[in-house]
């Protein structure tokens, strides 16, 4: 906060500390509710603002869990924020206030007990995040902000219809009344309402066809806000899907309609693969992370979809609970490592002012803390073993294999397809983050900014460290986190809590109460594997580093004898080239090479390469819709000639037509 006047600094710090306190308070309250077991959810009636709607807050298991997710990333962002804002801020006080409003709205959405509070908080969340996106009023930020707003508004319009139809049947707004009213509806309307709700929340969660705004809006916000938007706001949209799918629209008893689960599952798989494929070709650090949010939302939806399919008796009950626990755990994991990665990218942006990987490089030696925390986040997001990304993906695999695929027939095949998509996603994510970490932090600095980068101040590192700690804790001892999911899974699917299925004895051992088609045989222990890994690594380190008098020498990297310069390092574009060839159908790559040769064609003076990858959803759907809407509007506009005779003519015609049509009884 060096570059700001003292008063602003105090206000910003105070604001952020307030947000931190709120986050910690919220977390404590949520954990108490989660530990509360089957106790009735705390209910708080709000003052009657509107005569037709009684507003209230009620925090049940699901709300409490999502509150924990909100609190975790908010705490990190609050610690991180002030020092980030100092160097980078356009209107820090406004941003602090908007951040507080944004977090408050997100918490309110989770705890909303009725449709009115939910809708008000939901749009408040959108508006507050829009203010943060456009707080730095550059041209592309405004455009990104606009697309974000329009998509969010369209989503809200869909939600409005769902809420109001239910409210109309229930003649009340609170969730209990909506729940009972939904039970009265017939299957077809409930499915239509669910699909509408899925579209509404999907637009906000960045599910594939509706994800176009996400990579544009998230990078535009300041980084700790991007972390909040990607890590938490997408989860609030998923909370909506959980709330409607399992709770509000669920039938009184028996399984959910099959179409719900499979739609969510397939949307999730599509989002996962397409999200990570597009992320691979991005060279802007924050856009890459935003596309990855689409991927991880997909993974969560795969778990949720599977839980919807297996729930209510269609598949074995423990596996349904396992699938839901996997989805919720991945929600928490993604909040942690995506938040960490965005804060890391923010620290690089704060120090170098550059987001494009091609101009960075060699930052690991200059910003060690940021580099290794970013690497930790990269390993976690690529679902590689020691960390939490792997655990939730492992549980999703177990649920997919032992639950989904064993259903047999077409549904089994669909689960198989989802499993293969998930496996592919893991590999792609690892390749993407090898590129992201390698090109940004390793090798030689490719610009003066990267050359003179210095490590970020302590609070930023502390913010990142908090989330890294969460990743490590969830990675090494996931079993201890299982009780966190007991209440939500029990409430949503009834019966077993998550910890009953996934025994919480230190290591993550997947045992059910009694053998369910061989379920108890699969057991892994992250703790023991990690201990073994550490032991062996130490042993190898000692053996290879044995105090010997062998000479140690530093030499330039081997480049066939030439003296290596920064230009030698492999760029991100080159790194991702093989994938552009393999997935050419999805990318439709386009490239343009200008070759400026000297006197003879073989003397190359200048070579300029511009390559571009296309986001299919954007070009196929959005560009066409925008063009069509503008074209028709322009066409209609030609009709108003501005001649007064036309005006009078219209009055006359309207009257005569009205008389002809309506006058007769």
């Amino acid at each position, binding site marked *: 906060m060096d570059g700001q006047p003292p008063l602003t600094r105090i206000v910003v710090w105070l604001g952020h500390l307030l947000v931190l306190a709120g986050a910690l308070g919220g977390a404590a309250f949520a954990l108490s509710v989660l530990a509360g077991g089957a106790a009735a959810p705390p209910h708080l009636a709000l003052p009657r603002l509107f005569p037709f709607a009684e507003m209230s807050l009620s925090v049940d298991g699901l709300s409490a869990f999502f509150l924990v997710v909100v609190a975790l990333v908010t705490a990190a962002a609050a610690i991180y924020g002030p020092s980030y804002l100092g160097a980078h801020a356009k209107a820090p006080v406004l941003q602090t206030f908007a951040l507080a409003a944004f977090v408050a709205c997100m918490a309110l959405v989770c705890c909303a007990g009725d449709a009115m509070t939910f809708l008000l908080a939901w749009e408040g969340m959108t508006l507050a995040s829009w203010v943060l996106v456009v707080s730095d009023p550059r041209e592309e930020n405004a455009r990104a902000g606009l697309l974000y707003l329009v998509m969010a508004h369209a989503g809200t319009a869909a939600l409005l219809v769902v809420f109001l139809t239910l409210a109309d049947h229930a003649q009340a707004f609170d969730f209990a009344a909506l729940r009972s009213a939904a039970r009265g509806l017939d299957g077809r309307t409930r499915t239509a309402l669910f699909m509408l709700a899925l579209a509404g929340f999907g637009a906000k969660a960045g599910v594939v066809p509706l994800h176009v705004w996400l990579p544009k809006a998230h990078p535009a916000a300041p980084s700790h806000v991007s972390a909040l938007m990607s890590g938490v706001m997408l989860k609030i949209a998923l909370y909506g899907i959980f709330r409607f799918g399992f709770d509000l629209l669920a039938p009184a008893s028996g399984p959910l309609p099959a179409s719900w689960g499979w739609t969510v599952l397939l949307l999730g798989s599509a989002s996962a693969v397409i999200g990570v494929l597009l992320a691979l070709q991005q060279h802007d650090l924050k856009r890459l992370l935003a596309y990855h949010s689409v991927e991880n939302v997909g993974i969560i939806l795969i778990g949720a979809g599977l839980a919807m399919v297996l729930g209510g008796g269609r598949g074995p009950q423990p596996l349904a609970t396992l699938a839901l626990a996997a989805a919720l755990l991945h929600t928490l994991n993604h909040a942690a490592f995506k938040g960490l990665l965005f804060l890391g990218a923010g620290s690089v942006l704060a120090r170098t002012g550059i987001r494009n990987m091609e101009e960075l490089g060699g930052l*690991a030696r200059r910003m060690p803390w940021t580099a290794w925390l970013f690497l930790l986040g990269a*390993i976690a997001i*690529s*679902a*590689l*073993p*020691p960390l939490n990304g792997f655990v939730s993906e*492992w549980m999703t*695999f*177990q649920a997919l*294999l032992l639950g989904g*695929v064993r259903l*047999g*027939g077409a549904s*089994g*095949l669909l689960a*198989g397809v989802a*499993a293969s998509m998930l*496996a592919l996603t*893991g*590999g792609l994510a*690892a*390749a993407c983050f*090898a590129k992201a970490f*390698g090109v940004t932090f*390793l*090798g030689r600095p490719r610009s003066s900014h990267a050359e003179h980068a210095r490590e970020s101040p302590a609070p930023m590192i502390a913010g990142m460290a908090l989330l890294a700690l969460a990743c490590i804790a969830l990675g090494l001892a996931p079993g201890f986190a299982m009780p966190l999911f007991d209440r939500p899974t029990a409430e949503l699917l009834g019966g077993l809590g998550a910890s009953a299925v996934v025994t919480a004895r230190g290591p993550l051992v997947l045992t059910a109460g009694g053998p369910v088609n*061989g*379920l108890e*045989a*699969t*057991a892994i222990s992250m703790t*023991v594997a990690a201990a*073994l*890994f550490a032991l062996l*690594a130490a*042993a*190898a380190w000692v*053996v*290879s*580093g044995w105090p*010997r008098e*062998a*000479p*140690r*020498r*530093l030499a*330039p*990297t*081997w*480049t066939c004898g030439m003296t*290596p310069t920064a230009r*030698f*390092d*492999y760029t991100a574009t*080159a790194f991702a*080239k*093989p994938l552009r*060839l*393999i997935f050419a159908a999805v990318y439709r790559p386009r490239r343009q090479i200008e070759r400026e040769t000297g006197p003879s064609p073989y003397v190359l003076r200048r070579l300029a390469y511009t390559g571009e990858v296309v986001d299919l959803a954007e070009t196929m759907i959005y560009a066409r819709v925008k063009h069509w809407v503008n074209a028709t509007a322009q066409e209609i506009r030609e009709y108003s000639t501005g001649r007064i005779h036309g005006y009078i003519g219209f009055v006359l015609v309207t009257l005569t037509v009205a008389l002809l049509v309506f006058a007769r009884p």
Partner: protein
Amino acid sequence: MERTQHIVRIATETGLLVLLGPLVTGYVQKLKARLQCRRGASLLQPYRDLAKLLRKGTVRSDTATPFFRAVPALVLAATVTAATMLPVLWAPSGPALLPVGDSILLLGLLALARFLLAIGALDAGGAFGGMVASREMTVGLLVEPALMLAVFSVAVAAGTTDLGELAARRDSLAALSWQAPDLLALFGMLILALAETGRIPVDNPDTHLELTMLHEGMLLEHSGPGLACIALATHVKQLVTLTLVATLFFPPGLARGLAPPEIALALGAFAAKVLLLATFLAVVESSYAKLRFFRVPQFLGLGLVSAFLALALRVL
């Protein structure tokens, strides 16, 4: 008592895999030389290379970060931890007392090793490190899902993904006797084993031309004991891959108790299976030419499709 016996079992099996790793590579090199009418180096040559490397000094790139020195140790640790999850001699009877990991964790650890190697290659900077890292990750992202699908196709029938349990059930349950999906899965696994162990059609282990090597390229900047660790890790990884194929598709021969004749029989069966697969590797190496890199995805695609079909047939 039960727990310590379990630990001893795991320790011996892992020790066996680590020690025999270089021997298998030596055998493959020897067989290749023979097929090409050469005498070839002795079977123990890899051990001598490792001993030599441990004694040599290190040359480190000036742009590398301190992390670069840690990469070899981490890669070796990841590979050996993966090795602990494979049932080599004994098939466990009841639920594991001290579970370490299942097939998904094994493949995850191998992926972690590949990721760390790629990061190490990028760390040194320079064109070759970047190029090899990019190619290795590309091959990785095609091989990993295929391996997982192959393992899943067998795990779905067995009802568990834990390799020990799976091998035990393989020969006991009639349902798991050989059917069409197993054949497809085996075919897929063999293709992917070639890629995983960095053999000819995908990558050439013996070349020194920087532009063509895939796995070797990542070792370019390592030297001395670090290089020894990575070389050992490569050998162990090769043996782990072969043992994984053996466990999934050739189950008989795993011992139950501790009686010496049973162990000897299990050892013999294990040796036979590994030699059979090693011979397959050597034969393929010396009879095919290396594919141009941008043709490799089609080759691996074949493996991916057959693995997926195995899973699909298992379900339908």
